[in-house]
């Protein structure tokens, strides 16, 4: 499980970095989003993830039964906060890219006037 997560995080970071280095503005904004997603997966993984099993679900199987072990709620709270921040930032990046397009009449960063 942790190997799969490591591969996912690494892959997302690689794709995000590749997109960030593109000339096209929209791809850069996508890169911003993908890099953020990579950190979210990473954060969740930092809480420690166990293989799914019947006694791990947070919903009790039987009423009045013993409380099963639950996943670390702290990282989930962190990720929710980070997702909200990332949503705002990505939206702002999209608006800025449109504005930059209006000013420069090009989506290619290398053709910018400044």
């Amino acid at each position, binding site marked *: 499980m942790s190997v799969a997560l490591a591969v996912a995080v690494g892959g997302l970071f690689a794709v995000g970095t590749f997109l*960030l280095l593109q000339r096209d*503005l929209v791809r*850069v904004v996508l*890169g*911003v989003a993908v*890099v*953020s997603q*990579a*950190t979210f997966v*990473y*954060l969740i993984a*930092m*809480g*420690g993830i166990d293989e799914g099993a019947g006694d791990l679900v947070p919903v009790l199987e039987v009423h009045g039964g013993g409380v099963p072990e639950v996943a670390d709620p*702290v*990282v989930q709270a*962190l990720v929710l*906060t*980070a997702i909200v*921040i990332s949503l*705002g*930032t990505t939206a*702002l*990046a999209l608006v*800025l*890219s449109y*504005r*930059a397009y209006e*000013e*420069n009449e090009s989506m290619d960063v290398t053709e*910018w*006037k*400044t």
Partner: protein
Amino acid sequence: MSGLVIAPLLAAVTTAVLTLALGRRPRIQRAASVAGSVAYVGTVSAAVWTVVLGPAATGAAAYQVGDWPAPFGITLVLDGLSAFMLTIAAGVGVASILFSVRYVTAENQRVYYHPLFHMLLAGATGAFLTGDLFNLFVWFEVMLIVSYVFVAFYGTDHATAASFRYLVMNVFGSALMLVAVGGLYATTGTLNMADMARRLAAPDAYGIDPAPVVGLSALLLAVFALKAGLVPFQFWVPAAYTAAPSPVTAMFAGVTKKVGVYAIVRLYFTVLAAASVPVDVPGLTAASPLGFLAPVLGAMGVASVVVGGFGAVGRDRLGAVFAYSSIGQVGFIAVPVAVAAAAPPAGTLRGVAIAAALVFALHHALAKGLLFLSAAAVEDATKTDRLADLGGFAGHSPVLSGAVFVGLLSLIGLPPLSGFFGKFLALDAAVRGVASAPGPSSTLALVALLLGAVLTILYATRVWVGGFWGRETTAVEVATVESGQVAVLVALAVAVVLVGVGFDPIYRFAETAAAAALDSEGYVDVVGLSGGDGA
């Protein structure tokens, strides 16, 4: 008393909401914004006096948000270091907002300028106060999102491009910060900085393996250096500083940059100083993460001094000169911090060097705030800030030029101005660093500071001779200086002089702040960790 800790934050956020609601009533909005910044100064003064400086002060106080006990909830801590930084923020904040009211056009002030400004202040305040690593990330983001909007504020092609680049780079920085924070959480099992300090001081007792902390803290160092604009992360500074409205640039230079410096000091000296984590990377072995910080931050500081100094000498616009100068001046703050990191933990050098860095931070906030605002006033009057088109301003407007003169002399470091003590103490720390650990690196730091001082004299002279002396150019002849703006500048210039003349209490405040930064145990005690021992 603990309520006072959160009071500055509440003042800033309340003002932001209030000014947003008053968007349709520009005059009342402006009045509310000024009143809010005065309230901010009031709450900061009250909190700093009651908690840190007053006769009955305890030295530090904590506020547990939502009354959640310490390691589980978010803790806000006001100690000497936070108090010193908040005082800087309050001073620069009130000056910038007073200047903004007379400088930014009424159209541009409508609706969003004032709420954003107070959110910037709130972000910085939160970052200075928080005792929780993830919460620090959140306050950084609050500050950054406001900064993106301010850099793009005028909506020109230059501003949009600067803002977009600034955004992309900082998103990557934030991603790195999240990686580091998540990693530290997985390593130490806590996000509370006091709890982290306690656990890292005795890793075996808590059953943690602290080895990853070195690399993770290095990631954080990179992020904080990006915020502080240290070389090699300085390239966003000139474009962003020249694109943003000038009063906001004064805030960027005086407050936002200092958040990065503050975070480095807080993380390494309060949280990681006691950690017994051996560093073993190629070319570097040390007993604690501070041994890693010393050479890396030292190199960044030296490079910043050189790059900023040479960059400033070659610019032909006032704003660009001061933006590059800012890069160099942050180097002057970073080098003493590196000296402190290299110093032995037992001696007095560590405290002296941190105090030197803090005094320089205060000087830079005041003097550079004064100069950025002066450049704005000059540009407002003449519609240009090219040194080639300026000249003879000293004869045209002696009061404004006098304020600039004070700022430039303070930058050079002439007594009795604030810059004299800033530069003197920074050099003093570097000399002591050479004495305590003779070697090529400590000598290089000292030489770089001296070179930086010479470069400062060069570009300050160039600005004065090119822009203010000599014959009046056509742009200057028709210029009309706005008296309200000049009043703010004069007040700042007087503050620069007063800090230098009445330096003793300020140095004692800086010493208190440095002692608080180094006192991990005191920090842990104030936070009052009542639970979480069993983990």
